[in-house]
């Protein structure tokens, strides 16, 4: 067993018996450091995350080479090698700069209009907050918020935005109230069953706050009307329940330079973020392509915990109010993940995709597209591509990766998605770059491609097979299936 010298950084020497250098046995860099950390829980805490991974801000050198450019912790060591541990030093200020919403609204005259005595009473709890005050309440009154969807997410959001005094609330929904809605859509009553949602919503909101102007848009949002519908509003709250509309709303908001407050729910989990293409990613930066339609059942098919959209819708309302007031830290660049069963909140940093077709400087999409086609609503009877190309299940792939001849793993997602999580040992070649980068792949080796849900990697597999690669497979179900069945520590997004 090779013996290496580990240089202990000054701050940790006290926990390594005071030594500046320790001689340790181990076959790899990882093994050596782990045996150092085992000596003391404080060392363990500073070197490793609670999940047992080397902390981001710990850099390890093997004889002056950063192990990230070698084989990371798997880098083998020889007798007499020197392993140095160097902390990266990081820190920062407590809060980010404030972000002011660009209010698109009425002119200065409205600004000077005073509040009635009733309104001063109604909003008194807002007025007492220094961060709101009369000036903030005016901003709310002048704001125009569009809620796409008046269902699970839109219902609680609409109620609280109306209570907060948002001056104009637009609602887009063409459904009628159904009995099964009442398990969560608290805007409606039993008597409303059968009534168009917009009529019921308008009445309910006006009863709560007659000062709010409710603008119904009883239409099915489409590429033909979306830009026109969204245009007059300052903020869009996305409470849709299907992928074509999600992409449509995102694209329209980006094209119109409006922030959209995203929320989504599935069974016991929810997600919230704010997409403002001027300052951060848009929906497409994180999810460049929709999942195959057969993989994502709606709430009607999969069920949803009734209280869940209540929380998520309220988080969306919270972000909307903050955007209007220009207060606090918004969720721009952050994807909040909520697990109702575990009652945990996780946050993923999300970045603008420098090659986003919609919102980057390399944007190619300048208008709205055919969303149902984009989301692959399949022709009746068609087999998904994933099943037509050679594929491998996550469990089988794991076994192969642990074997002595693992396949060459290629991640075909975008850099922003790679940054959220990726499989160890994988190589990132975004699908769009594959044709020009095929030389980085040896035709003889065993290739496995993966993406988030399996659609892109199936297409990329097809592409490589057509180019003459003999041994290429796609990971069936993608990273999501891997996270579900093999390694739950991989975040799903």
């Amino acid at each position, binding site marked *: 067993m090779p013996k290496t010298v580990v240089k202990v950084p000054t701050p940790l020497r006290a926990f390594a018996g005071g030594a500046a250098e320790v001689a340790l046995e181990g076959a790899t860099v990882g093994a050596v450091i782990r045996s150092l950390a085992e000596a003391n829980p404080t060392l363990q805490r500073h070197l490793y995350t609670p999940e047992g991974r080397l902390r981001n801000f710990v850099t390890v050198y093997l004889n002056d080479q*950063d192990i990230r450019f070698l084989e990371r912790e798997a880098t083998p060591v020889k007798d007499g090698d020197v392993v140095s541990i160097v902390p990266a*030093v*990081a*820190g*920062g*200020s407590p809060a980010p700069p404030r972000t002011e919403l660009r209010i698109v609204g009425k002119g200065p005259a409205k600004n000077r209009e005073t509040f009635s005595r009733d309104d001063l009473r109604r909003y008194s709890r807002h007025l007492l907050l220094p961060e709101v005050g009369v000036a903030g309440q005016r901003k709310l009154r002048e704001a125009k918020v569009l809620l796409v969807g008046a269902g699970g997410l839109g219902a609680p959001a609409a109620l609280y935005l109306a209570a907060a005094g948002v001056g104009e609330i637009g609602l887009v929904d063409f459904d009628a109230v159904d009995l099964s809605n009442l398990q969560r859509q608290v805007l409606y009553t039993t008597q409303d069953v059968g009534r168009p949602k917009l009529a019921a919503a308008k009445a309910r909101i006006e009863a709560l706050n007659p000062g709010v102007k409710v603008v119904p848009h009883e239409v099915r949002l489409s590429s033909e009307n979306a830009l026109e519908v969204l245009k007059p509003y300052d903020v869009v709250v996305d409470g849709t329940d299907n992928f074509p509309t999600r992409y449509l709303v995102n694209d329209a908001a980006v094209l119109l330079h409006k922030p959209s407050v995203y929320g989504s729910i599935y069974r016991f989990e929810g997600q919230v973020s704010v997409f403002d293409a001027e300052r951060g990613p848009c929906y497409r930066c994180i999810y460049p392509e929709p999942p195959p339609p057969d993989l994502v059942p709606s709430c009607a098919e999969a069920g949803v915990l009734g209280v869940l959209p209540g929380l998520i819708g309220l988080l969306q309302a919270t972000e909307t109010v903050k955007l209007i007031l220009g207060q606090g830290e918004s969720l721009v660049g952050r994807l909040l993940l909520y697990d109702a069963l575990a009652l945990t909140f996780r946050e993923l940093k999300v970045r603008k995709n420098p090659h986003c077709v919609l919102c980057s400087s390399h944007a190619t999409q300048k208008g709205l597209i055919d969303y149902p086609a984009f989301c692959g609503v399949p022709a009746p009877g068609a087999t998904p591509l994933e099943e037509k190309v050679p594929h491998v299940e996550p469990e089988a792939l794991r076994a192969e990766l642990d074997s002595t001849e693992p396949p060459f793993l290629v991640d075909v997602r975008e850099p922003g998605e790679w940054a959220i999580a990726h499989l160890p040992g994988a190589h990132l070649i975004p699908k769009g770059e594959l044709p020009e980068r095929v030389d980085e792949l040896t035709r003889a080796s065993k290739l496995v491609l993966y993406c988030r849900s399996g659609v892109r990697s199936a297409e990329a597999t097809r592409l490589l097979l057509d180019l003459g690669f003999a041994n290429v497979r796609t990971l069936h179900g993608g990273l999501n299936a891997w996270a579900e069945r093999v390694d739950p520590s991989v975040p799903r997004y």
Partner: protein
Amino acid sequence: MRPVSLPSSLLAQMRAHARETYPDEACGFLIGVGPDPTEPEARRILSVERAENTFDGERRRRFLIRPEELRDVERRAESTGRPVVGFYHSHPDHPARPSQFDQDHAWPWYTYVVLSVTASASSAVGAFELDADAAVFREVELRVEPESLSAPSVVEG
């Protein structure tokens, strides 16, 4: 928790750095000795060195010193018998107190100096050390010495 002493000229140097990089965060190394033979519990800062803020993102509110830079500065410093004893950074438009982010990324033993700087002035400064058991920052006494008293009593090593 060790009190820290430094000559006022070094504080002036750090403040100048913070003003120059404003509105981005400035960062750098504190080089010194500790313990001082005359005061075993204290740490003396003998020189400061600027570092490059290589944070990939908002440098107004985050800083990152590359490990290679620390490694190189440490080597040079240790060869003169004066190790890197800590780091300084500035908080543009924020108080001279460490943030949660600072705390989450701090290491024990080092002294962390935080300077508050605004567009018109740089004012407050604070020094902190991580309590290794509690993993929280404790403020330590920062003694700024006027120039005439700052002849270093250091043995060149």
